[in-house]
């Protein structure tokens, strides 16, 4: 299990195992939050452990997403140039989402 293809496959497997409880938790959490006022939501989400969990979910989710999108690009895009551009776009997208989530987490933390 030393080549990159099997490492990719293993990461996709382990990240999906980690994402099952995370996705289930956040589905229930968002459902609970949907019936609350703004102040209640802030007090529910400003706990440090919760914000750390949001960041963990974001990082694992984005890595899982990045690998999945790579897999699709590998299957359908045959031009090396387009492939390279797609990978750059995906990386920029991942960085953008991670940036926005990190900024939001910091802003909620210092509220």
């Amino acid at each position: 299990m030393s080549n990159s293809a099997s490492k990719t496959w293993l990461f996709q497997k382990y990240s999906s195992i980690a994402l099952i409880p995370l996705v289930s938790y956040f589905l229930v959490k968002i459902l609970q939050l949907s019936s609350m006022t703004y102040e209640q939501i802030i007090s529910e989400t400003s706990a440090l452990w919760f914000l750390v969990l949001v960041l963990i979910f974001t990082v694992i989710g984005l890595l899982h997403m990045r690998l999945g999108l790579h897999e699709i690009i590998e299957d359908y895009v045959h031009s090396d140039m387009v492939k390279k551009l797609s990978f750059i776009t995906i990386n920029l997208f991942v960085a953008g989402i991670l940036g926005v989530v990190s900024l939001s987490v910091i802003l909620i933390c210092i509220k």
Partner: protein
Amino acid sequence: MNNPLSPHLQIYRWQITSVLSILHRITGVVLSLGTIILATWLLCLSLGEFYFDFFNYLISNFIGRTIMIGYTWSVCFHTLNGIRHLGWDYGYGLDLSIVKVTGWSVIIGSLIMTTIIWILSVL
């Protein structure tokens, strides 16, 4: 002239196995794009009540609701079908008859989950 034509994709019978496989990818792409909505929601929450109310206003019309319900179904489907894939990785459910049963369970299960989530959110 009745020249022979090459086979068209439409003439092949739809099969649960191939349809679910392509749906797994489509929902994966939908979830990827949906991270923009989730990140925007979190950003609006962090910026203040005005922005948060504005976000809720944007998703409360018919188009917004449709997108959010579709997104919820994508989460449920991709997660349930992902569990099915994990089972295969460990050698469970590989028998063709079982593949069909678990496939239909994923479709029906994801629809039921989505319905329950949205009924609970309205109550």
